[in-house]
């Protein structure tokens, strides 16, 4: 009997030692527990934020929203975020409401309080979701701003449209800005008469011609690796899809259909281009073609009439686009095609790097504004308008 007692005593103490040792070896680590909806999007995580006011409070909550974390009442929240912002510093402690365990703590300083709060938002989102690529709070967007009749420039801003600055002063029409990496823009400008496509290094303002062929050169789209540009050129008599290197060399004509093509968008792996064309002069439809050339393949977008402006999500799974039902409506379809899912009224979607949020525009012509959309919850946040009309957003990846 005594040996049995000894054995149990030993077992218990070893077990206790092992479990305490496991706890003691690192700080208590939050085990990420998230769920996904039927479309593969993270289900929102409910939190309750305290300790901030004014700009810091709205910036943090807005950032978190588009990373799948929603501020709710204490009753509904699973995590409590106790934050503080003063001067150029922002910090927070995140605890699990029921267990009271601390799951994340961080502090940041930046050039301004707003940038410190954005960094804090990113760190909280990564900790709660366990996903590195969820973080978008410090990303940028470029978009077209109408500055007068037949006048537009490219502006660059934080993803929430704060701090917008003109990148161009061409005093002509500039259209379809897109990013090559995070430091360079590519767009079409009418500065020399016809539309030509230029690359533009943001830090220096240096520009180079990507496409200056006879006729019209427009609708550029840059591959994710920044090396190639897809575009619409009419140099051979019909607006068709072409691909070239980012310096303009190596031009290759991909399509030859006489009805014309529009709106190219790259797959994230750089192998396929989705674009708009017509089947025999009929209404517009989406197609895919190999970026190195081949036959166009129709992309089924059932329930979405007249699809245009496709934008391929960075994770490769979805193609968002504009359809026309009583006005413009955003839809998305799986990259293989199929039944399109209706999102919200609006046009010209551009996915966030986290493949969860997107930016779009809406409103009457020459009076449009940009908005953010959290795709799985269909939460829309309209953004501040710069001058008269903002459109053609492009989210830097």
């Amino acid at each position, binding site marked *: 009997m005594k040996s049995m007692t*000894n054995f149990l005593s*030993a077992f218990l*103490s*070893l077990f206790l*030692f092992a479990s*305490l040792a496991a*706890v*003691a070896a690192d700080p208590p680590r939050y085990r990420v527990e998230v769920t996904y909806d039927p479309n593969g999007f993270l289900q929102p995580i409910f939190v309750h934020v305290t300790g901030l006011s004014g700009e810091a409070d709205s910036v943090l909550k807005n950032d978190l929203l588009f990373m799948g974390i929603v501020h709710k009442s204490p009753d509904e929240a699973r995590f409590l975020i106790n934050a503080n912002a003063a001067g150029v510093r922002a910090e927070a402690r995140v605890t699990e409401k029921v267990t009271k365990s601390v799951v994340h703590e961080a*502090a*940041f*300083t*930046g*050039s*301004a309080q707003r940038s410190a709060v954005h*960094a804090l938002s990113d760190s909280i989102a990564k900790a709660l979701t366990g996903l590195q690529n969820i973080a978008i709070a410090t990303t940028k967007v470029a978009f077209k701003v109408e500055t007068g009749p*037949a006048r537009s420039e490219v502006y660059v801003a934080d993803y929430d449209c704060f*701090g917008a*600055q003109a*990148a*161009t002063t061409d005093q002509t029409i500039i*259209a*379809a800005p897109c990013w090559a990496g995070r430091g360079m823009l590519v767009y079409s400008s009418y500065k*020399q*008469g*016809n*539309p030509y496509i230029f690359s533009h*290094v943001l830090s220096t*303002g240096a*520009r*180079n*011609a990507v496409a*200056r*062929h*006879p*006729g*019209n050169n*427009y*609708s550029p789209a840059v591959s994710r690796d920044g090396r190639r540009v897809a575009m*619409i050129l*009419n*140099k*051979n*008599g*019909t*607006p*068709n899809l072409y691909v070239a290197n980012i310096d303009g060399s190596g031009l290759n*004509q991909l399509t030859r259909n*006489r*009805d*014309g*093509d*529009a*709106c190219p968008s790259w797959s994230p792996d750089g192998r396929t281009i989705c674009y708009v064309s017509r089947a025999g002069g009929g209404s*517009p439809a989406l197609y895919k073609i190999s970026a190195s050339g081949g036959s166009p393949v129709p992309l089924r977008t059932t329930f979405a009439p007249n699809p*245009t*402006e496709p934008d391929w999500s960075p994770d490769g799974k979805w193609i968002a686009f504009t359809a026309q039902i009583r006005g413009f409506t955003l839809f998305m379809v799986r990259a293989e095609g199929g039944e399109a899912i209706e999102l919200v009224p609006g046009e*010209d979607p551009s996915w966030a790097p986290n493949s969860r949020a997107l930016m779009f525009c809406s409103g*009457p*012509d020459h009076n449009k504004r940009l908005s953010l959309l959290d795709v799985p919850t269909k939460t829309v946040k309209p953004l501040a308008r710069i001058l008269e009309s903002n*459109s053609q957003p492009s989210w830097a990846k």
Partner: protein
Amino acid sequence: MKLPLHWLTIGLMALSLGITGCRKRPDRLTTLGGTGPRSIVGDEPSNPFGTKPFEGGTTTTATPTETGLPQPPGDWDNPAKWTRNPDMFRDQTVYFDFDKATVKPSEVAKLTEVARRMRTMPGHALKIEGHADERGTEEYNRTLGDKRAQSIREFLFKEGMNPDMMPTITFGEDKPAVAGHNEAAWAKNRRGELVLLVPVR
């Protein structure tokens, strides 16, 4: 020497409690690089776009390729070479049906008139400017305006005009002729405008 087992137990437990007693406090103060907003509008070098403009069309043929008539290279927008006269053919602006780029029968007479008058003006060129109404999306409309200008150009080619003297441009929905959000306005914006280019001598 054999330690009593219960002493070992107590010893281990005490050791465990001793370790867990010291909780590490994460100190992750992170300072971000901050340089403030930088100017992102650079100075324009004197020739920012690099390449020299082409001279007037010498290399394109008048034979349609499988994708239509090639665009003529040329310095069409250089006021030292060409003077724009948008009034000469203002009455011959061609109108199109919604989402279509084909020249309607009702518009044909305008274009035969344009061809006739151009034959009396040797050495003159014709810039064809395609437009769309606001009801398509922006870049889709840029392609549509482009197609409309090309359709007019191909029609005029069949009327005997030299395609090398007919550059085209598309404005999509950027330059409406008539403001308004109704069919009366839209019908006036779905158009191709014909601008005479007079050679500067």
